[in-house]
């Protein structure tokens, strides 16, 4: 046990390093599914909900986007000012056009964001999200990625994460706390 503890202290970042930066301190630039450039400053004064994923993902990503769509419907117009974005961890395949096709299946308020490999890496670093390419047979690949949904207050402060396996009934109250 002692050995494990020592290993953790040496190799894992501390808790505060794992928390996303406030939106205002982030430095990424991404492109949305309509081809427009988006920067953190564009989100100033708005509550924010962000999820990392990719459109080739058949299970976790559509499930999360279905859940987010249901939450947005339950919140109704209260969530209209909220920025809700899927950031692709697979920019090689997820072009803005591909993302447009994909997000059209879900609540219309959800934005798809992508960019160059470096731009996506910067966004993930700012959110303290991680992703990793995993090779499959015949040159195919999939992506492991952070599955939680990040919530931010309108002033850009990080609010909370909705974990993938968390009871989904707690999600809407968590989101509501960022809307006022």
């Amino acid at each position, binding site marked *: 046990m002692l050995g494990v503890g020592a290993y953790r202290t040496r190799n894992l970042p501390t808790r505060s390093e794992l928390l996303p930066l406030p939106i205002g301190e982030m430095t990424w630039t991404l492109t949305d599914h309509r081809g427009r450039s988006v920067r953190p400053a564009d989100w100033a004064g708005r509550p924010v909900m962000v999820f990392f994923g990719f459109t080739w993902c058949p*299970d976790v990503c559509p*499930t999360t986007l279905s859940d987010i769509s249901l939450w947005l419907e339950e919140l109704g117009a209260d969530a209209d000012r909220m920025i809700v974005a899927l950031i692709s961890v697979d920019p090689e395949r997820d072009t803005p056009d591909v993302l447009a096709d994909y997000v059209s299946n879900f609540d219309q308020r959800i934005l798809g964001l992508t960019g160059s490999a470096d731009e996506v890496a910067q966004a993930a670093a700012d959110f303290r999200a991680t992703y990793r390419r995993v090779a499959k*047979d015949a040159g195919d690949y999939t992506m*492991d990625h952070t599955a939680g949904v990040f919530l931010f207050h309108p002033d850009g402060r990080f609010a909370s994460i909705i974990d*993938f396996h968390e009871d989904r009934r707690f999600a809407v109250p968590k989101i509501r706390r960022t809307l006022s």
Partner: protein
Amino acid sequence: MKHFLLAAALILSAPAVMACETVTIGDLTIEHAWSKATIGAGRPGVFYVEITNAGSVDDALIGIATPAAGMPMLHETVVQDGIASMPHAMSIPVPAGQNVQLSPGGYHGMLMGLTTALKEGDSFPVTLSFEKAGEVTVNVDVLSLRAEGPDCADAGQ
């Protein structure tokens, strides 16, 4: 009245008549087989199903086959330290007297190499191979990419 409204809502929201087929093999009951529509044939499809083992002998799902995909596999979505991955599942236990679900966020069939895009309202057969019970084929309903499960009359029971 409430029941009537619910039934009416289901009829209105149902895009197509779903088979919601139930098949049995030995002590196993296989039901609520469904999939999600895909954008094109390049992306993998997914397969979900519910298996009940009413017998007294443990069994296991060891593979799936379908004409809809060149490389169907069993996967398990695992979230560890907040990171989701989908390792290959060599077999999915179906213990005696228990109900096992391949469902969003857990075990699923991963349909790689789709022969054609899966469209909402379509259905396709999947053959499940069990270690002890052998093989059985079920028809799978394709729901929307947004669907969270089939609206079968008995769903949730």
